[in-house]
């Protein structure tokens, strides 16, 4: 196991963070705008989000760099600013962490499909390589390849991330199939465990796309399929529109209660994705403390 991950998982489940996009939206980021741009234009707001997670008890916080790869930003005014966005993202999270939490940097999907030939494996690898290098140079302690829908794209990102020598987490979204236990491309947790392990991930897992209840089974199946640590960040349920506003129905208390079952199912790292906020992390912290 990667030394840093062994250090973390040695003393029970590790608390990660919650959503960033929705938190930035609450601070005025207009819908449809790229959150990563705020690393340069509104670093204060981004730092506020990061700090709120540290204060809520996150032992690991991520960075606001989910979309900051050359392919995802192609054609926007941010296209040639990837390196600066990634650097600023890590710096902001490190300032907020102030040594009280570790900073693992976020690497999200390109938004293009390998399957349709919109992008090639080598193009993906190059773009992720560039991003991983910027994140590592700025002082990230780990890299989190997250919200991946296609295991081949995850592979490109994990391979690139590994060249930095940092701990690499690989997570996919399981939201498809009759039982919502498959990726968009139809892979089961067992197949994902094998593919991401082969790609060289130091920890594997699942995030986004589903609420915490639904991820309990996926988590257990990943646990049975691998010896690597498991990283899980579910959504606060699925978004619904109530009175013209986007709502996630799961409350922090419900989320934390259900998240205990993730730990029982073998999760080593737990946190939240879309719809979660620092209150969810605080609720999780109390729950996890009470267990110890």
């Amino acid at each position, binding site marked *: 196991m990667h030394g840093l991950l062994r250090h973390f998982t040695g003393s029970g489940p590790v608390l990660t963070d919650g959503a960033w996009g929705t938190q930035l939206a609450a601070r005025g980021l207009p*819908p*449809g705008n790229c959150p990563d741009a705020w690393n340069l234009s509104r670093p204060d707001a981004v730092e506020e989000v990061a700090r709120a997670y540290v204060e809520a008890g996150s032992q690991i916080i991520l960075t606001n760099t989910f979309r900051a790869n050359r392919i995802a930003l192609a054609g926007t005014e941010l296209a040639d600013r990837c390196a600066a966005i990634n650097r600023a993202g890590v710096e902001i999270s490190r300032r907020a962490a102030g040594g009280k939490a570790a900073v693992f940097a976020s690497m999200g999907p390109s938004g293009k499909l390998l*399957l349709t030939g919109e992008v090639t494996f080598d193009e993906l690898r190059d773009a992720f390589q560039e991003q991983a290098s910027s994140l590592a140079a700025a002082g990230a302690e780990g890299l989190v390849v997250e919200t991946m829908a296609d295991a081949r794209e995850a592979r490109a990102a994990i391979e690139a991330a590994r060249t930095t020598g940092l701990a690499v987490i690989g997570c996919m979204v399981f939201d*498809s199939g009759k039982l919502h236990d498959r990726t*968009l491309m139809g892979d089961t947790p067992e197949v994902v465990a094998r593919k991401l392990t082969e790609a060289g991930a130091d920890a594997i897992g699942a995030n986004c796309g589903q609420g915490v209840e639904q991820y309990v089974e996926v988590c257990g199946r990943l646990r049975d399929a691998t010896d690597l640590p498991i990283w899980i960040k579910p959504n606060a349920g699925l978004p619904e*529109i109530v009175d*013209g506003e*986007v709502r996630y129905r799961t409350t922090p208390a419900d989320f934390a209660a259900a998240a205990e079952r993730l730990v029982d199912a073998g999760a080593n790292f737990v946190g939240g994705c879309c719809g979660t906020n620092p209150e969810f992390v605080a609720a999780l912290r109390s729950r996890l403390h009470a267990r110890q």
Partner: protein
Amino acid sequence: MNDESDLLATIAQGVVHLDVAVVRTSVESAVREGISPFRIVAEGLSQGMRTVGALFRDGELFMPEVLVACDTYYAGLQLVQPLIEKDNGRIAKGKIVLGTIHGDIHTVGKDVAIPVFRAAGFDVVDLGTDVADEAFVEAVRQHQPDIVGLGTYMTSTFMHTNQTVEALERAGLRGQVKVICGGPAVDVRAALKLGADGATDNAWEGVQIMEAWMAEVRE
């Protein structure tokens, strides 16, 4: 008559079974039999895609199969496209300017929906993905459509609808078009609140809505 519907059903099945060869030969036979290109698309190819979409929603099919089905659908479409274009005498039901709303890069839904609208007799101008509000405004000025179609595939980008509508209003163009949102996360009541005139998660229902609008206009 029965032969015709059998042939159209074979085309649809070919799409569902991802069988390009069956689709090609049955589309060719349909053309030879004199079935109109519009019926071949609307009652054959599109029906197949409709089934594929339903199977995907139910979790019976995954994205790789959906994409192969799209290719199969397009392979059939290619054979009838020239005939549709030659059919000058046809009077379009209406003109749609359609694009994926700002911030949204989902393409598959739009690429499935557009041929369905064309098959139903609409002229469609495709503006592509992640279309800025101003680009919609510009396109309405240039193409003078009856309808603006917004591809809104996420809750967050669906909520952007009001800004696109406001941009049309500011440009003084809102009054001359109907606005419809399409995508898996739309909600009709919310769409009306956001300033659109309708919304649907299904291209075929979209056709019905838009046909009703065009009928209103003609009255």
